[in-house]
């Protein structure tokens, strides 16, 4: 059964049709890539899934339950984590605090117990710290644990953001251009992390990418968007010959 299903999803911004009749499914355990030229609606699609654009049309279902109309925090609680395209880390907090914020929906202590720092609140902090440390270990972030995010280089910040999403122990991980702005080495590191997440943690991932080689190498399934419509959907090998994909990407036919 598919983990996430999109049925006829549409989105308009006063006349601009950002998404139109988008229908496809994401299988559990997949590393599903969504590609397309600039303005194709990739990020808008993510915003629809995570509940930021609540004026969308159509249906989004996670494990058979409708997500449309829910608030972003509620969707997060149901197991959808997200990594933003232009880094949305909490600049003034340390790496560890950023990761712990990924655990926020799982905290069982409220404001009062936290204010008086009760035994329960302390135990809860330690419990989530252990989980955050697992992610730190997984992504090799040990050196940066106590550093405020604002002093870290871009490549590390990307990794911290991936870690923050992993801390949520999500069912579905939405990755919006995880390699944008990274150099060759950092890109390869990121690719390894994504593969590790798939194989060791078994988390389903949806990946937006620009770099075709990266996407084609990693993905198990690829959906191509152009001007808000799905123009192709299938395993990477099936898309290499697809003329619609080629024309969307390079504006015409190319000699193979």
């Amino acid at each position, binding site marked *: 059964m598919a983990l996430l299903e999109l049925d006829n999803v549409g989105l308009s911004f006063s006349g601009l049709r950002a998404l139109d009749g988008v229908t496809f499914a994401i299988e559990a355990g997949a590393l599903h890539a969504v590609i397309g030229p600039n303005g194709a609606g990739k990020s808008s699609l993510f915003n629809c899934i995570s509940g930021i654009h609540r004026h969308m049309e159509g249906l989004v279902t996670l494990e058979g339950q409708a997500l449309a109309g829910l608030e972003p925090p509620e969707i997060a609680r149901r197991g959808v984590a997200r990594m933003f395209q232009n880094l949305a880390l909490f600049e*003034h907090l340390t790496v560890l605090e950023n990761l712990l914020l990924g655990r926020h929906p799982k905290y069982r202590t409220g404001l009062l117990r936290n204010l008086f720092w009760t035994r329960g609140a302390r135990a809860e902090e330690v419990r989530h710290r252990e989980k955050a440390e697992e992610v730190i270990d997984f992504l090799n972030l040990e050196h940066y644990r106590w550093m405020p995010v604002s002093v870290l280089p871009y490549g590390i910040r990307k990794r911290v953001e991936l870690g923050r999403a992993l801390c949520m122990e999500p069912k579905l991980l939405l990755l919006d251009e995880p390699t944008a702005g990274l150099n060759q080495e950092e890109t390869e590191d990121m690719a390894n992390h994504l593969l590790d997440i798939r194989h060791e943690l078994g988390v389903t991932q949806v990946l937006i990418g620009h770099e075709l080689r990266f996407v084609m190498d990693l993905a198990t399934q690829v959906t191509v968007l152009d001007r808000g419509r799905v123009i192709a959907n299938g395993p990477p090998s099936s898309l290499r010959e697809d003329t619609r994909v080629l024309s969307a990407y390079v504006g015409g036919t190319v000699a193979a």
Partner: protein
Amino acid sequence: MPTRPLVIRYEDDLKLFPGLWQRAGVLLTLSITLAYPWLVSTRWLTVGNLGLVAIVGAASLMVLTGFAGQVSLGHAAFLALGAYTVAVLGAKLGWPFWLALPLAGGVSALVGVVIGAFALRLKGLYLAIVTLGLVFLTQHVLLAYPEVTNGLSGTAVPMYWWFRDDAGVAASLSETWVVGGVGFNFERKLYFVFALLAAGTVWLTKNLQRSDSGRAMMAVRDQDLAAEVLGVGTTQAKLQAFGVSSFLAGIAGAMFAFQQQYITVEPPFDLNLSIQYIAMIVLGGVGTVFGAVSGALAFTFLSPLAETVGGALPLVNQLTSAQQATVLLSLVVVLVLVLEPLGLFGVWLRVRRYFQAWPFRY
């Protein structure tokens, strides 16, 4: 000598005073706090009491503005609500101060949460304007019911340590107690009560800072969209910040009223007071409890100094003493913003780094 104990459990990282140096610092602070009232004149003891009030007030503003990033000009309104609550409970009903204090916080917190709910969609300047409106609204309401608040002429704020008995004889705190040959006059008693309240406030805000609730507020401050996607309810975080902040602000206002013994609506509860509190947290360093405490103390102790210095400066000495303090303190705040945006907290970081690296310079 190890300067930092070995951390072997995650609990160790959560301690406020993990090492020898921190504990030595606590001991030093404690002894200074205990010795202070016996070492200084009455004038400076009063300044000390105002400093403790300012610590509570600044820490409460730090929760709202420093942690949750909600710029508020309405702090004076919350202080006024706390002050008038204890005034009415004391003067009309003869309640003891320890019962009136939490109620002052409660009244203020209630208004804070209601205003917070209205202000949920507002950010930055717009929020500042709405909270500014709250100051005038509160002033108006307090003056509109003179049968409760005594209106323009102000009201006395008696401080009882027990309920007024049937004969109307009050257990007032203002008479001097002699304990073991040591005289505790009103100012000294006030000092020790205030020191406890300030320490409690610092403890609470520090707990907030190191716990999930505080982190959620900071997440809303830094990136509200990302916070939502992580499952942090921004509505909840903001309302909690408003609630905690205005509760503590109410306590601070009540402390101020007890210290003044007689209060009017305006001054002191006007826009100027709100701005003074913002100046304190900027001076100390926004976003840290250390900043709230150091900013509050620096601001309160600099005010009388500024009046002394101001008289010696040309042009400045043409102004009234209050204006002199305002001009000089504004200058200090501007200089801090230009030279050390992290405030006194930034200065402290540099001093600490110097000694950690010593004898090397880097």
